[in-house]
């Protein structure tokens, strides 16, 4: 009888102990799930914040560029046009010896007006949107080739189509950034541009034969230029891969699915 009672008591104690232990284990599992869920939510918030911040930065950049474009077009070119006109008037009333110099100066001013107009168009969002991506890049290539700084070739594979105004603009800015880097840092003689238009894939490839840079530079992404390229590509749902090594130039490839919906 005593043994039976003791057994019952021991069983009750063990049952209580087991119950409390199971409760603790259940709590630990619940807690861990909550921690994971919180971590995921935080990461999502951070990602959204980063994207919003980037979007805002790019919008501010575009507004600034548009403003500069407008100022160049409305003010600077107007003033230069007036200077050109005035020089034309002066040329008609002076002797031959000095006339040549004045005409030469007038032509330089005319050239500046043309270059400034081209620059203004390349900065302006509306102009890019109306011309389309391919045509805008072609015009830019013409301008650079005319300058003689570098030889740029452009090739197209497939029938061109619009990626959407915003995406076209971002791709064009990536092209401008790459061109800027090539001219400023690479010391390249040739730049090849390839635009591949497939049904479910758009690929922009920019390859130069410049001095290239090491993987470490790429890791540190010195200057905001390379970082900007990757961020802009990510913003429109694409990916940018940058490959380079010292002495072997640089290859930048932007891949984008035109069918994929992206808020920006």
């Amino acid at each position: 009888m005593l043994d039976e009672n003791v057994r019952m008591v021991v069983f009750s104690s063990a049952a209580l102990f087991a119950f409390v232990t199971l409760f603790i284990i259940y709590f630990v599992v619940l807690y861990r799930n909550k921690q994971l869920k919180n971590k995921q939510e935080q990461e999502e918030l951070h990602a959204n914040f980063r994207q919003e911040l980037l979007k805002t930065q790019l919008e501010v950049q575009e507004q600034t560029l548009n403003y500069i474009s407008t100022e160049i077009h409305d003010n600077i070119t107007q003033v230069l046009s007036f200077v050109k006109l005035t020089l034309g008037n002066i040329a008609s009333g002076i002797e031959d010896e000095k006339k040549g110099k004045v005409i030469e100066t007038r032509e330089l001013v005319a050239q500046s007006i043309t270059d400034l107009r081209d620059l203004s168009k390349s900065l302006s969002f509306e102009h890019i949107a109306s011309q389309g991506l391919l045509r805008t890049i072609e015009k830019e290539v013409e301008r650079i080739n005319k300058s003689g700084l570098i030889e740029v070739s452009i090739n197209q594979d497939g029938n061109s189509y619009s990626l959407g105004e915003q995406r076209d603009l971002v791709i064009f800015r990536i092209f401008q950034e790459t061109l800027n880097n090539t001219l400023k840092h690479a010391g390249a003689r040739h730049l090849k541009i390839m635009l591949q238009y497939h049904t479910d894939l758009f690929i922009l490839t920019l390859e130069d034969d410049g001095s290239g840079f090491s993987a470490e530079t790429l890791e540190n992404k010195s200057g905001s230029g390379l970082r900007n390229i990757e961020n802009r590509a990510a913003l429109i749902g694409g990916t940018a891969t940058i490959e380079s090594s010292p002495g072997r130039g640089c290859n930048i490839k932007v891949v984008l699915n035109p069918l994929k919906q992206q808020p920006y």
Partner: protein
Amino acid sequence: MTVQEAVNFSLLIIVLGIGVVCYLKLTTPFKLLVFTVPVTILLDLLSKVSSHLYKTNALILHLECLILYIFYSSIYYYLFQSKTTKKIVLVSTIVIVGFAFFNGIFLQPAYKSFPSYLYMVTNTMLVGFSLLLFKQMLLYPVKINITGQGIFWYNTSMLFFSTTMFLNLGLTNYYSQLKFDQGIYYFWYGSYYILNILTGIALFSNYKEKNSKYA
């Protein structure tokens, strides 16, 4: 001194050692927890002296129950974030102190009776507090792994100790009827071993927490 008493005493000394070494880096509630250990040692010694001199340690047990409850509820006061819950802890402590005096004078005289009513009430309150704290931990999880959090180990120790003591008190009369005093003995000491071990882990975890990158 029996083997069980020696083991318990050793555990208390080890926990006290951990508490003293880690004291400066502990948060306020855990600093209070360190103080419960020397208080327990002192009261245990007084209990032995009282048993030897007066053949009863009932008064010491009354005091021990009340003093340890005040300590543990103070620790919970610091751990709870909600102002309402803190007020509940504060009010309950005042009520329990009042009840302890009432119980010691009228219901279970402190000079001769074991304070079973007081133990039951205080343990019930501590179980309630531990469940509330578990709920708070779920609502506001932190980045640190749960097994590395001192608050988890302290709360677990309270839950274990309070529930087992509650059962132990419930079974005390039954054991006495069966003349199975050994049952009370082993159960009582088993509960204290778990409490002391988990207290030591809680103190060490709180010390490590403060040094972690999430502190």
